């Protein structure tokens, strides 16, 4: 268990490291990379599933942090700042990857059955959802954060989380996953 003293000492160390990085000793940045890569990786991997994309975004996060290190106030904690950058990177990633059409031409329609038809029938997917659920899911797929969705729909943040969770469960049920029986 990490004590308060140990944490403060660690913060003090990071402050000294960042000060020296600002002074040009860029090899000290490896200490920050060593200490925070795992946390940032886990954070991003919870939001994306493709390993290559997760690694790219982790690299991009540290690069963005390094580019702005001259403006970073060393009295601030490093980890929350890094996670904020990671959040922004994930958001920008989703916005730039808004619609991806599978280009795999090897998908063959056999016996008249198109395995992708249930994905293409977006309207029927959304048919079972309420208006707020549809709106929240649409905004989420467009890369908006939960806070932005809450602000737009004028609902509390936890309500938006519940709406999106229920919408996801409803969509999964249509594919035959999750509980089909209402509790």
């Amino acid at each position: 268990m990490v004590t308060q003293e140990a944490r403060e000492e660690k913060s003090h160390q990071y402050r000294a490291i960042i000060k020296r990085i600002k002074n040009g000793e860029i090899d000290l940045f490896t200490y920050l990379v060593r200490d925070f890569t795992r946390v940032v990786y886990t954070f991003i991997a919870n939001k994306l599933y493709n390993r290559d994309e997760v690694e790219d975004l982790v690299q991009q996060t540290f690069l963005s942090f390094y580019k702005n290190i001259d403006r970073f106030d060393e009295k601030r904690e490093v980890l929350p700042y890094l996670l904020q950058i990671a959040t922004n990177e994930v958001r920008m990633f989703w916005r730039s990857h808004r619609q991806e059409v599978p280009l795999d031409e090897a998908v063959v329609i056999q016996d008249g059955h198109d395995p992708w038809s249930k994905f293409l029938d977006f309207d029927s997917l959304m048919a079972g959802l309420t208006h707020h659920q549809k709106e929240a899911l649409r905004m989420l797929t467009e890369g908006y954060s939960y806070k932005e969705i809450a602000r737009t729909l004028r609902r509390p943040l936890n309500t938006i989380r519940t709406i999106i969770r229920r919408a996801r469960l409803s969509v999964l049920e249509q594919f035959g996953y999750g509980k089909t029986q209402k509790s």
Partner: protein
Amino acid sequence: MEKPKNLEEKIVDRIYSFEAKKTTAEVILRLVTLGVVVFGVYLLGSVIGEVLHQQQTFSIFDLWREDFDAAREYLGSMIMLVYYETPTELVLLFGGCFIALVALSLTFLRNFARIKNRIYSLVNHWFHY
């Protein structure tokens, strides 16, 4: 969640690549700017000197050797004469270039330690890593 070990190496390599490009561009830009300003100061100084020499402006100060009392009495007029004969625009340009040279030199000296540390880190990474 497992994190591949070489991801840290990739991150560090990317940082060093970025810093190498940035530092190289910065050093070249500083040196070129300093070179241009130094050349400007030298050129303008030479031209002003040549103009004053051809006009024999400074011969007026021979009066200091010949008759010091008269020179002291007419000092104000002598200075005004030099002022009227001096190419004002060139002198202003020269002054501007000289101030720019001083400012650039001071900035360069102030950032010298930082740039030196960066170059040392880069060389250490690429040639010893």
